[in-house]
């Protein structure tokens, strides 16, 4: 089982640290495809996706005690990965000199419900949105196909609040999101 707790009382430090290092690998092998695929499809840069994946696993490692108790580890990772990528997109936009090589062909799993072009349009416009939860709401709804209520559950707000945030954003970017205008 992946999430075995390492015993600290009975083992030497060296062994404990070796076990911990096995643990992070086990976690990575189990969940890495979800995280990496998500990072690739949201970031479109192999290097950025690798760094973001690493960042997510660092956080997972930090919070592994609480992660162990999660009813749905994939939900936890999905949220953390999404917020990590969206933060990174904004940082990249603000500091274009730090831009890494873009690899347009790079793609994560084609599990999105919108076309590549529509997803790119949305992600490019998202950097203009200040509010982190609204950014996440837009991705969950438009790219991942969650209903307003499902998004609300992810973000801890009501479905109505999600609907409103999305509507306000769409009004702001009216005419610049042709692929998603009708959805």
């Amino acid at each position, binding site marked *: 089982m992946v999430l075995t707790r390492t015993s600290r009382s009975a083992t030497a430090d060296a062994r404990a640290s070796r076990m911990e290092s096995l643990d992070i690998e086990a976690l990575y092998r189990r969940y890495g495809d979800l995280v990496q695929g998500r990072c690739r499809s949201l970031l479109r840069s192999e290097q950025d996706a690798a760094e973001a994946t690493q960042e997510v696993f660092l956080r997972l490692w930090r*919070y592994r005690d609480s992660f162990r108790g999660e009813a749905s580890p994939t939900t*936890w990772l999905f949220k953390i990965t999404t917020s990590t990528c969206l933060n990174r997109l*904004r940082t990249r936009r603000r500091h274009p000199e730090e831009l890494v090589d873009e690899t347009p062909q790079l793609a994560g*799993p084609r599990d999105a419900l919108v076309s590549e072009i529509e997803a790119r349009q949305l992600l490019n416009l998202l950097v203009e949105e200040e509010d982190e939860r609204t950014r996440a709401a837009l991705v969950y709804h438009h790219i991942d196909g969650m209903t307003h209520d499902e998004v609300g559950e992810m973000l801890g707000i009501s479905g109505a609040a999600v609907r409103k945030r999305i509507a306000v954003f769409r009004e702001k970017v009216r005419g610049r999101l042709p692929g998603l205008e009708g959805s």
Partner: protein
Amino acid sequence: MSHLNTLVLHQLRYGELRGDALLRANEHLAACETCSSRLRAQEAERAAFVAAPVPDAIRAIGATAAPVRSWWRDWLPLAGALLAAASLSLVVREVRTDGVTSPEVATARPKGELPAVEVWVKRPEGTRPLREGEPVGSGDRIQLVYDPHGASAIALAGRDGSGRIEVYTTNAPTGIGLVRAPFALTLDDTPGSQELFVVGSDRALSEDEVKEAVAGAVHGARVGHVVLRKREGGGRR
């Protein structure tokens, strides 16, 4: 009929769906080519992933002195910024050198939590968290990663061995969870320790106010702080 959302497909693959949810998902997949093909795409990604080696940078995470203490159990994932101030001293301890002062925190600490700070360093194997006691030297590229803990404004500043305070930005990104500073720092050869500060506040501070906050004045600011240990001779390893 609305499609299965991306997360539900992951949950299905990972065996997290139960009861009605599982039944509904399977019924939908049997009838919907779009969703079956999305699920196949995830499975193909999984197959390619399993065949690839674990990156060194991921292994390195397990090798860091990761903070796992009982109080971490209180942490509620995604409930926002809930890391205790203890996380700061813990992170700081990872990079503090012997003989260097403990993190300074304004004594009349304002409401709210200190921003947690950590330092990542660029190494040949990738950018990774600085390890406990690991020295840095001139030419090293480092990246600050911090948790704003709900602060509305974040400023980043440094103090070098000569005591000079430099404000890098008064307008760093905020957000929930760990945030990367919008730039990397390249260390110069100024002797002595290099300190880094993450100043969180409920309003944007001026550069002077940030300098004062770093020096110990309050201004409603919460100051997270790390001290980098400089390598003997200052050179790159």
